[in-house]
């Protein structure tokens, strides 16, 4: 479904800043892939490139990003727009600032439907309420009319997921979706994501610096360091038998009691 070949991304902000160097990655349909690494390793940039959210004027992008047979990097802006929201959805880290503070939740959830389909207002509303129930938002009828600041952090993230999910996209890109949430809420959201993947077959590209979180949701994981993928494989495999130095460091950082097995 998704095939990244030799991706190179750099930025022009005065100094030469290479974020991603020669990255190769493949994702099949229905797959859950985690992309881990420390801050600055290029994982977010990779995700944003796939989502088509990089500013072409400032970012120099080379390589191929083939989604369902089309190279996204060669698409025009308008062609990309047709995919964004419909086939590719994005969940960002900060649900408070990622939602329009002046627009009701219900309308925001429906937004992709409005942009990409011809459903009537009534139909959209029904679909919104349905997906709100699906993601576990309490009292959907009431919540539909609320504004983002009236919801809790966890609820906002659920709303974001609802908004992205309503069009049943093929790929959902999640950029540190639980980092800003409480631990208990984190667990619930991760469970929700797992469920969505299992029941509806939606692929998840899960970006995180936290290996534990990735472990709960993703079957495969790619470790990034300094713009490159240094290790890739099944999550459990990597955890049991990390091959690269950096991976070992990452693992030992999160599970101190494994130090004896590592290195």
């Amino acid at each position, binding site marked *: 479904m998704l095939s990244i070949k030799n991706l190179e991304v750099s930025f022009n902000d*005065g100094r030469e800043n290479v974020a991603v160097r020669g990255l190769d990655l493949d994702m099949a349909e229905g797959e859950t892939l985690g992309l881990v690494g420390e801050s600055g390793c290029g994982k977010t*940039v990779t995700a*944003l490139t796939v989502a*088509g959210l990089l500013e072409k004027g400032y970012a120099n992008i080379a390589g191929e990003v083939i989604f369902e047979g089309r190279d996204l990097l060669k698409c025009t802006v308008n062609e990309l727009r047709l995919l964004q929201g419909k086939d590719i959805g994005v969940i960002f880290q900060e649900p408070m600032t990622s939602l329009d503070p002046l627009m009701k939740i219900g309308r925001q959830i429906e937004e992709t439907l409005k942009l990409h389909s011809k459903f009537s207002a009534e139909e959209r509303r029904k679909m919104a309420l349905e997906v709100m129930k699906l993601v576990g938002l309490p009292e959907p009828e009431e919540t539909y009319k609320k504004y983002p600041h009236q919801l809790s952090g966890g609820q906002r993230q659920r709303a974001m997921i609802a908004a992205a999910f309503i069009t049943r996209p093929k790929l959902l890109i999640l950029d540190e979706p639980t980092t800003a949430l409480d631990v208990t809420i984190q667990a619930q959201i991760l469970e929700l994501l797992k469920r969505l993947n299992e029941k509806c077959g939606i692929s998840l590209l899960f970006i995180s610096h936290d290996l534990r979180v990735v472990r709960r949701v993703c079957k495969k994981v790619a470790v990034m360091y300094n713009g490159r993928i240094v290790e890739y494989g099944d999550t459990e495999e990597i955890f049991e038998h990390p091959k690269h130095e950096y991976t070992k460091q990452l693992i030992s950082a999160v599970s101190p009691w494994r130090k004896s097995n590592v290195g």
Partner: protein
Amino acid sequence: MRRTPNFNLIFGCMITGLTIGAIVLGYFWTPYEPNVMSMADKNLAPCAAHWLGTDNFGRDVLSRVMEGAGTTLNIAFLAVAIGAIFGTIIGGLTGYFGGTLDEILMRINDAFTAFPSILLALVIISITGSGKNNVIIILGILFIPSFARVIRSEFAKQRNRDYVKNAQLMGVSHRRIMFVHILPNIMNVLLSSIAIGFNNAVLAEASMSYLGVGVGPTERASLGRMLLDSQAYMTTSPWMALSAGFSISIMILGFALISEGLGYRPTWRPRPKRRRKANA
């Protein structure tokens, strides 16, 4: 990290520099005596002898503009000085110490600033009479509330900063803290307010003189007054009004650019992982 040069500040300084240069020159030398009338030369279009022409009394427009700009600048400078000095003192005191006096003054201040200052100026002028000195005093007093408000909010913001608390702990006197420690830190805001105040003063003086209640006809030339006098001759000799009007505009433009430039933060484009432009 490449920084786009601060065009605003550069142009602003250039323009203001030119105007001030012309004005200072005007104090010592003008092509002709600004107030000397010469019926033989009246209403001449701009020519070699008179670069901006003459007015209906035969006075050289360029000289009058130079003197008029000087008058306007003089008035604006003094008015802003009064407003800034007293406004800073009042704002500093209330912002730093707070308390009920602060609350009351703020309410009064709010009422004041809501009202267009030109109207207040007109009201007071109607009671006291017109003339250059009156204008200076009235405008100065009218500027005090706006300066006080800005300075007060700055002092209030700084009051809780660590360096102030440290100084207080070390036993530094309040007066010293306010002047030696806090004041330099808010210089940016203060200078910006002064530039804006300047513009308002120039505009106010020009407006009042145009309405006939500012600088009188017998005093030194004033740009606003010149506009008033020359309006009738717009059809036949527009250069009078245009010179005066554009001089005012250029003065204001210069200071506006400077105040823009002062508030300038060099924009390196932030790592644009987020935004997307349709045009590459």
